[in-house]
């Protein structure tokens, strides 16, 4: 159902299969892909160069979380509506997404209609958050921003040393931040912490 107004969507997603899926989903709609970024870094560069109406953001980018990207874009004054995509339901993701300044969340599916509806909704000014994401339990300890950053880098496959270099802090500090994060998550090992943080929508 083509309409008069074309909607340009910037797709920020590291999975080539999902990017192709989005392109095909838009084919018979008023939407088109204005550009594709495979990482948060590429997205930050592309968002200033390409004219677009809405951001479609994968939550688990290789270098950063989608919510962190949105947070940083908001700080830079980018007001384009943002839709966050996740591969599964993640506890507390809607709350984190709202705090970051996103307008919508959607769990990946094979349903193009759903995706297009969500994008249309946010462009009409409505927030629309996928009810599949369980609410963040009241009083659950949230990670401090630096703990979250360190854990997100580790979850993206970085070593402690690489994470330290990226955050501009010492290896030792990264270790401390991670240990604190493990305690808050009730995890003992790195992979366990990453999984738990992912389950809670923190990384």
């Amino acid at each position, binding site marked *: 159902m083509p309409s008069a107004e074309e909607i340009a969507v910037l797709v920020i997603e590291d999975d080539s299969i999902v990017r192709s899926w989005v392109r*095909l*989903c838009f084919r*018979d709609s008023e939407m088109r892909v204005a550009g594709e970024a495979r990482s948060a870094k590429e997205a930050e560069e592309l968002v200033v160069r390409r004219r677009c109406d809405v951001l479609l953001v994968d939550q688990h980018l290789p270098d950063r979380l989608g919510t962190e990207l949105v947070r940083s874009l908001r700080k830079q004054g980018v007001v384009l509506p943002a839709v966050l*995509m996740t*591969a599964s339901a993640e506890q507390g993701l809607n709350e984190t997404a709202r705090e970051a300044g996103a307008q919508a969340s959607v769990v990946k599916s094979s349903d*193009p209609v759903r995706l297009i509806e969500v994008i249309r909704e946010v462009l009409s000014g409505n927030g629309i958050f996928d009810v599949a994401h369980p609410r963040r339990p009241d009083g659950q300890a949230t990670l401090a921003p630096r703990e979250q950053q360190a854990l997100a880098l580790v*979850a993206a496959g970085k070593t402690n040393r690489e994470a330290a270099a990226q955050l501009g802090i010492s290896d030792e500090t990264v270790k401390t931040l991670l240990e604190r994060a493990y305690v808050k998550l009730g995890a003992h090992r790195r992979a366990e912490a990453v999984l738990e943080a992912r389950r809670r929508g923190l990384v």
Partner: protein
Amino acid sequence: MTGADVSRALRAEFSGEIRRRVDELAAASEAGDADDVVRRAHMLKGSAHALALPALVAAMEQLEGAYRAQPARTDEARAALAAARASVDASAPPAEAVALLSHALRTPLNVVLGFAHLLQQADLRTEERAHADAIVEAAEQIAVLIDGASGAPPAVRPTDLAAARAPAADVAPVTVLYVEDDPASARLTEEVLRRLPAVRLLVAGTGAEGLSLAERERPHLVLLDLGLPDLSGEEVLRRLREGPSVATPVVVVTGDSRPERLRELRGAGASDTLAKPVDLGRLLALVDAARPD
């Protein structure tokens, strides 16, 4: 396109890619890298949603669950990986059939793309140039689809013929023997090599003819297609290496661009390989490099 159509098209395009990702996931699990397993499983789950492969989504959830309980290659993790493989096998056409079909498609595709590239270089009106551009774009899409379905790594095809045109006119003449039974492919190569000065191209339609021309004409370079009517390409390669062409560079032109296959061919004596669809700029560079000093 309905959601089912979209997912079906993507399954065809990415069947090789999904298979590769499941293999890589299994390798990560075997290597004991729990973080890597979790990351790959998570991404694959997202892909599986897009492809409408619920069994693969379930297998990835099972794997994530197993690693959450214990970040190691447990029986549960093994079972999840086996389920993932089974779901991929069930959803994709047999790899053999895909490989054969994509192999067969590469030769005609090479001709379409090659001549379209030549058209782009020709002196055309704006409108006709747009037509040529559209053909190139569509043919490149087909190439990407074939790469995806056959599990070959996507080839880089920067075919800037204008830039590859040789500048100097006083270069040493070079004789090139092209062993190729497909007349359209031979004509394409002829047209492309016409863009270089002082190239003598000999075309042999069979392996036997190729061997006798090699013996008589002593070319500086042999381009060898593998799908010949009489002898296998490997056989021709072996005999060239035994005969007078022992030191002549032999570039194998092949529709099978899987890295292991290309390695095999080099092991069998090929000096270089050109994957179809052929990067014409690279072809010109190879010919130029074969000129005698």
